[in-house]
């Protein structure tokens, strides 16, 4: 699990750093049946940009790609960051605007994921 988390944190950090923020906060919280990863930055983004991030992180599940290529998340130093590698592997993602920039919430869980065990906000 430790390696898996490091991969995801690495890819998310790369994505945020690509936008040259002056502040980035990554916090990890253990939940009843998994983890909640929160990432904050202070880069102003348009609604269109936020929607793109939302779509990438909530990409339809692709087990054939996640298990095989997902390992590349957070590994490479070159090329653009790729949020879909993260999106295929997380159970749920929320993207919201903050006063300064953006907050991304990711929920990670095992094969028998049950959203009721997580602090995912009800819509």
């Amino acid at each position, binding site marked *: 699990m430790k390696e898996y988390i490091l991969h995801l944190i690495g890819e998310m950090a790369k994505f945020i750093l690509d936008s040259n923020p002056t502040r980035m906060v990554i916090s990890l919280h253990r939940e009843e049946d998994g983890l909640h990863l929160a990432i904050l930055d202070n880069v102003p983004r348009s609604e269109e940009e936020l929607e793109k991030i939302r779509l990438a992180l909530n990409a339809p599940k692709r087990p054939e790609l996640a298990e095989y290529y997902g*390992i590349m998340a957070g590994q490479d130093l070159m090329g653009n960051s790729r949020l879909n590698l993260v999106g295929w592997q997380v159970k749920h993602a929320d993207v919201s605007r903050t006063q300064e920039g953006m907050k991304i919430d990711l929920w990670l869980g095992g094969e028998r994921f049950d959203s009721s065990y997580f602090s995912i906000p009800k819509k």
Partner: protein
Amino acid sequence: MAKNELFLYALMGGIVLLLILAGFIEQGFEATLKGLVALQARPARLIHDFTALEGVGATLVNSGLVSALSLILVRLTKVRLAGPTIAAFLTIMGFSLFGKTLLNVVPIIFGVYLSAKVAGKPFAAYLLIALFGTAMGPIVTYLVFQSGLNGIYAVLVGILGGTVTGFFLPSIAISMLHLHQGYNLYNIGFSCGFFGLFAASILAAAKMKIDIQVIWNRDPSLTLTALIPIISIVCMVSGILLGKKKAFTDFLAIQKIPGRLPSDFVDQVSAEGTLVNMGLLGLLGSAYVFIVQGDFNGPVVGGLFTLMGFGAFGKHVKNCWPVVMGVVLSCFVFGKSLAAPGPILAALFGTTLAPLAGQFGVLVGVAAGFVHLVVVERTAAWHGGLDLYNNGFSGGLTATLFVAILEWLKTTKEKREGP
């Protein structure tokens, strides 16, 4: 199932039927069946052009049947028929013209299935590894028919060898991605070549003959020559009918994607634009073979099928041409014929390095193609032709070299400039 996916199933199924039908018409029913049975008993290591061994008809039917098996597996595992699965399907179709048979792919697929079970994952998670992993099929037919073992003992050893190979492939394939970071599209070819080094060494140590033999059809039929242009035009027309003007704009959008693994063009852009891209790659590839006066035989048509297939999963005109130019330049510098087996296959399959051109530009792409040709002509002997994706093996080595240098340059520059 979405409408577009249903259409893709119909199109791919149609190509399978076209191959089988063309095969029987080309060679006649009885001769085709006899040839098909005889093909299953061929060792099938690189480069065994099936069209020269058992005729074009039997080869086309073999290709149709093996690729149909792959399409059925995609459906059964409920994996989407999109970029990666189209690439796997057309690659299998191509390599069944010179190496893959119904007999030698099944133990590999079964081995990967066992691996998934042991890892506690659904087979769908390893499906791509199973499909592309059939590149190691020749290890099965080599052990059964060429190793010097006899009878049921040879069959059992062959099946066991294939199953063990398939079992280890997922762990190797996932690990090899780290080396080239997705800049070699045929990652399984790289992994199979790596595994093949050990397999060939063990076989050589056991005093088994594993030298390379090239069987190359120099007089291919009109059916084989016309096959790829016809399928390419069908793909392009399908894309245009499906998307109309959108097919062109989506095709242009695809040209802007670097193509690094995993770039599913169907998912990232659209099925319509992807079909146009695949068709154009097929036509341009055929034009190249025609211009250099190459033979449209099993391996070359296999290369064209693979080029088209990866037109849905990482390759497009803009990132492929620099690599092809690099191979051509290498041929001129080292005095090699563009139509000879090694160079013509390197030009087609060498586009495995297209993401390097897509990400780092034309010069890097040309340099990668240049290096690839000289490396690929040596690597087949290393694994004794057991890995059908020899260009994937060489491409992996080349991409690893380039990524190492480029990464060092980038990090050194960043450190010098400071945060």
